[in-house]
């Protein structure tokens, strides 16, 4: 086995294991930490797929932005029971069997589909860092979607602050 495949296996186990622990845990903060580990593993997988630009952007956005947002959301919606002083971070759940079987059947179906597909094998490999191509492409061929994404971000952030403010 080549060292690349071993690195892939380690990262895939990190990603899948922490995703499973996200599913398994009842504590919202533990789930946020498990999501951090999942995002780290995913960034490693992106590097192994020669998408290092996306890996760095992914780390910046998810670990620096989305996770902080989620932690703030958890803190702001934290309910403390006045009688006992404990908070209700635990999610109440019921009926595990049906959702788990639906998830398992989704996985098995996708696994079967991907394994059967004739369109994924024997493609030529262009293995290299794509930093220069992505930078050039974002400013020439994909310049309009790039600017549109910027305007979209601005609209979303203004909308988020407007929605979250106290309207009383």
């Amino acid at each position, binding site marked *: 086995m080549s060292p690349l495949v071993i690195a892939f296996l380690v990262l895939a186990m990190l990603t899948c294991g922490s995703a499973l622990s996200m599913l398994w845990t009842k504590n919202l903060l533990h789930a946020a930490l498990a999501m951090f580990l999942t995002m780290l593993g995913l960034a490693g997988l992106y590097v192994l797929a020669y998408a290092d630009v996306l890996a760095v952007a992914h780390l910046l956005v998810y670990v620096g932005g989305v996770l902080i947002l989620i932690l703030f959301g958890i803190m702001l919606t934290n309910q403390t029971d006045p009688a006992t002083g404990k908070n209700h971070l635990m999610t109440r759940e019921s009926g595990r069997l049906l*959702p788990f079987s639906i998830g398992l059947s989704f996985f098995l179906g996708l696994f079967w589909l991907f394994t059967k597909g004739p369109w994924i094998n024997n493609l030529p490999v262009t293995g290299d860092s794509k930093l220069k191509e992505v930078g050039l492409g974002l400013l020439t061929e994909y310049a309009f979607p790039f600017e549109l994404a910027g305007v979209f971000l601005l609209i979303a952030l203004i909308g988020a602050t407007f929605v979250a403010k106290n309207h009383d």
Partner: protein
Amino acid sequence: MTDIPVIYFLWVSAFLFATGISILLVKKNTIFVLMGIELILNAANLNLVAFSKNDPSLQGLYLSIFVLVVGVCEMAIALAIILQVYRNYRAIEVDQFKSEY
């Protein structure tokens, strides 16, 4: 050095997608449901990246960058809506939102 086959990435992304679907169905907390949606988005992103590994014009990579931007926007708006819902109902469990009308 041998290259990693595309199918390995597809298996990992299938696993992430199934986990996200299960989180959506099992959990009642709205923030938890959002995390499941993020997992599903990232599974799709991993697929795009894995296919653009063998594509000289890198279309999947560009699309996955824009998917990242849209995912962030969705997260910000959804958390703002969750805050507003919490202000009205004093709860963020999805089975406790009852209409008063």
